[in-house]
């Protein structure tokens, strides 16, 4: 299935109730193919070429860089309005994400967490523009974020606790009777070194993927059901149908905004939770 599937339902004459002299056609729901847009400049070895995702990624990156350089321009001890808003965001990251998970010793990670939160939020929000996709609906982008966090936890943990000390603290949680380790160690090893980084990436990817697929189904379904060329009674009925689809679209649009915020928050929160395991030995 190629990217054409997402345009199929928008073809003229393809509606639920065919008009006079038109052949009816079935509804082609938007499929997984909509997440692999045709590259504008292909043929680059080892990549998908320059496509919509890359452009949206660069826009999100530029937007977050611009936002934070604007916030931190001409800093003052007494913050003005612009600096005040910026400090509010940083304080939100500190009080809601890094302080509850890592405590005061995690304060050096506040800039990193702020950057990750902002960038992921911008990469999600690009999906709200009709016709665009959230950058994180392609698995490679969240996978790189999660890989970065995973490598960072390994590096920080091994610097704080020593190479073997970190691994021992992770897979042999202290304070348990000896025989329990037969059960606990494989589970902990699998969870810390495999399932954690995998699900960290997949959680963000799956919610963005499913959310934008849902929005696309409502949009194309609504257009498909709107058949103004049919007889008056059927046309009126079809307007009702697609009006319901439009209401559903708008409701899920609002829901998607919430999901995008929450997923950016959860990704950052889990990143600092995992970093906390490297900073302190055990709890």
């Amino acid at each position: 299935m190629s990217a054409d599937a997402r345009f199929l339902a928008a073809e003229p004459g393809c509606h639920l109730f065919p008009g006079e002299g038109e052949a009816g056609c079935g509804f082609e729901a938007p499929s997984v193919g909509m997440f692999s847009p045709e590259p504008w400049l292909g043929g680059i070895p080892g990549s998908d070429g320059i496509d919509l995702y890359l452009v949206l990624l660069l826009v999100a990156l530029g937007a977050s860089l611009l936002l934070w350089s604007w916030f931190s321009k001409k800093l003052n001890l007494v913050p003005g309005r612009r600096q005040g808003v910026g400090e509010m965001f940083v304080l939100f990251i500190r009080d809601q994400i890094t302080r509850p998970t890592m405590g005061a010793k995690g304060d050096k990670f506040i800039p990193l967490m702020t950057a990750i939160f902002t960038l992921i939020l911008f990469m999600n929000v690009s999906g709200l523009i009709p016709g665009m996709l959230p950058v994180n609906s392609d698995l490679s982008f969240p996978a790189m974020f999660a890989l970065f966090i995973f490598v960072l936890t390994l590096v920080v943990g091994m610097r704080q606790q020593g190479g073997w000390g970190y691994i021992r603290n992770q897979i042999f949680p202290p304070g348990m009777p000896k025989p329990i380790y037969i059960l606990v160690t494989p589970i902990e090893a699998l969870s810390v070194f495999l399932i954690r980084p995998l699900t960290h990436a997949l959680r963000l990817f799956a919610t963005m993927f499913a959310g934008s697929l849902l929005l696309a189904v409502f949009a194309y379904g609504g257009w498909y059901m709107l058949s103004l060329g049919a007889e008056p009674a059927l046309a009126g009925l079809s307007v009702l149908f697609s009006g319901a689809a439009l209401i559903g679209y708008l409701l899920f649009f609002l829901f998607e905004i919430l999901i995008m915020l929450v997923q950016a928050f959860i990704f950052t929160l889990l990143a600092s939770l995992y970093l906390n395991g490297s900073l302190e030995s055990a709890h």
Partner: protein
Amino acid sequence: MDIAAIEGSINSVGYGISVIGAGIGVGLVFGMGMQAIARQPEARGPLQTNIFLGFALIEALAILGFVLAFAI
């Protein structure tokens, strides 16, 4: 005679079934967490940390189901 025939992939049905468990689990984690915070508001910090750890662990099951629905 086919009484109920299904064509194509029923992966999404399997995903839907797998999500029931994860949904119950996530509901339990957050419900119990809210109860615990309401009973002892000063323990909010560590409780919240553990709530999100448990949430991440449980939601991993739903996410694995989501991946398998496409992979298999």
